[in-house]
């Protein structure tokens, strides 16, 4: 074999597909801007308690509706609370909700979509029927119904538990908000992921390398988890990046309407809602949370576009 004369050190080091995609992503300026904004957002969300100049709950009657100043960079609201601190805590809420909701929706979507696409038949029909039904229900309506019907019952139940056990866990009504907000939002955001994964699996399951894996006698589980799903991940990453932004907007929208995270827990949505009532007099109360929310969603959408180009290099020019 003449070819074996080639020395092993002549082989260039392996370049993974991901390293390759990262190189393409790094060349995209908008995507890098988005990534930087997201990094700042995550940093602020994680280290919020150490960054806030004031407690987000402490009120100061003498310092109400102050314009931005050195002491209060973004001013104060009608209860004299520091707006910057509240925006930072709002970032915590938005990030937590977006990540948890997207992860739940994605896991449901991957599992149902992959099973439907790979096995087809009645399972596929059932999953697709479920996505159709879910998507046909207006998002806001479903969340309003869940919140108005379940929240009082859950609150009552927790009150009863507290009286019985005196365990302070049951005292914290923020948990109810989070469980209901996460649950209802995941419930309305999973179908697009399921459809995307199913479509991917449908095209991948007939690729020659899947046939080759079956010809190797590998079990179905291995074929699904090692041959099919990893190859479907590219478009899914793009969808998740865009989905994180969408989830933030959704959370704000629900809070804006009063069916999301409730005061006093700060959320950009309910800050916008409060600010809207007085924006002619105190525009900073509306501008601060609205601009931050806008930046966050733009950042995710830039990153999503960049990932799309980086992971599907043939799709561009």
């Amino acid at each position, binding site marked *: *074999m003449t*070819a*074996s*004369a*080639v*020395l*092993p050190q*002549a*082989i*260039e080091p*392996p*370049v*993974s*597909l991901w390293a390759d995609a990262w190189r393409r992503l790094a060349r995209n300026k908008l995507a890098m801007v988005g990534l930087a904004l997201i990094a700042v957002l995550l940093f602020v969300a994680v280290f919020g308690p150490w960054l806030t100049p004031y407690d987000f709950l402490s009120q100061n009657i003498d310092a109400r509706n102050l314009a931005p100043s050195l002491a209060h960079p973004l001013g104060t609201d009608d209860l004299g609370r520091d707006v910057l601190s509240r925006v930072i805590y709002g970032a915590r809420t938005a990030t937590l909700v977006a990540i948890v909701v997207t992860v739940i929706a994605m896991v449901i979507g991957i599992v149902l979509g992959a099973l439907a696409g790979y096995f*087809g038949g009645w399972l596929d029909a059932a999953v697709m029927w479920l996505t159709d039904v879910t998507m046909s229900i207006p998002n806001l309506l479903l969340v309003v119904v869940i919140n108005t019907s379940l929240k009082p019952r859950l609150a009552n139940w927790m009150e009863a538990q507290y009286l019985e056990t005196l365990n302070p866990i049951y005292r914290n009504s923020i948990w109810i908000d989070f469980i209901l907000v996460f649950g209802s939002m995941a419930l309305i955001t999973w179908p697009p992921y399921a459809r995307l994964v199913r479509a991917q699996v449908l095209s991948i399951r007939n*690729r*020659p*390398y899947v*046939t*080759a*894996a*079956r*010809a*190797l*006698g*590998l*079990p179905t589980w*291995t074929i699904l988890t*090692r*041959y099919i799903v*990893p*190859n479907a*991940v590219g478009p899914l990453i793009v969808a998740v990046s865009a989905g994180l932004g969408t989830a933030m907007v959704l959370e704000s929208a629900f809070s804006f309407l009063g069916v999301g995270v409730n005061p006093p827990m700060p959320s950009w949505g309910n800050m916008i809602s409060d600010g809207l009532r007085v924006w002619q007099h105190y525009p900073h109360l509306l501008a601060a949370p609205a601009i931050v929310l806008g930046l966050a969603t733009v950042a995710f959408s830039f990153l999503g576009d960049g990932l799309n180009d980086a992971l599907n290099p043939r799709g561009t020019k």
Partner: protein
Amino acid sequence: MNAAPAHPVAAVPESAPARPPILSVDGLTVEIDGRYGAATIVDGISFHVAEGETLGVVGESGCGKSLSMMSLVGLLPNRIKVVGGSARFGGKDLIKASKRELRAIRGGEIGFVFQDPMTSLNPVMRIGEQLMEPLIYHRGMKRAEARKRAGDLLRLVGLPGAEARLDNYPHELSGGMRQRVMIAIGLACEPKLLIADEPTTALDVTIQAQIVDLVKSLKARLGMSVIWITHDLALLAGLVDRVMVLYAGTVAEDAPVDALYAEPLHPYTRGLLASIPKLTHEGDKAERLASIGGTPPEPGRRPKGCPFAPRCPARLAVCDDTMPPLLAAAGARPGHRVACHAVNGADRAIAAAEPAR
């Protein structure tokens, strides 16, 4: 009881193989459940592969070459089913075997090499991982052990830089190198039978020759049997022991390779051989390349008689309504069988179709 194929199959015994058969297929019939009802796509084919033998399976696209081989190990698409026949392999009937048994046989005792090495490897998995997979699954090897064996396999198939390649992704290798990796994967568990489905079709000619030589030398070293599916008769000459020519899901001719080249009997085989381009010295006065007019019949629209009759230059009246049985050709070399009225004589066909032979 006959789960009889649509056309009578000759009961003429072939000359006993010198070595015991490792795979013997009898009356394999495959149907597709199409829009207009079931159509037969493999029509009662019978063949055997002896230990250490290489069988070439030849035919145009859509003649059921790959399909008949895939049907043996349960690798058929949804709407396609085996409806009759048996396939004995290592004391088991593959057609009756459970899914679990077939999974153990695939990759374990029967290895595969596929046509297109560019798409037959998982693009997001390092080739070392893909080589280790069957070893871990079928042989129960530990990862370290499997990795060592994977390196040995890459050296066995002559991949330059063997071990150093384990961490490469498929896109970092050339087509020929990938096909070597495919062969290494196919051979990982030392199968008794390797089914190579047009393994050289997607490669350029110089690489084709390398791959053919590689399989020949590996076969000699490992003593396995090989089924080599191709539409390229020229490729088979120095590679296989026996050739089976398929046409529209039936066996047209089955012969030792030298007998087939010396004296092709079936008009279809002759047509295939005539359509191989030849290099002549007078390049300026090149002959027009022979071709066979028409296309194979679609499943479900097969003629009642010989499926090749509409395209056949030697057609007789009887060909249109009686399927010619596969018979040992009179005056030909031992083991040479052909299904053609013009060669065998229509009276022999009718005699063979009688139950009391």
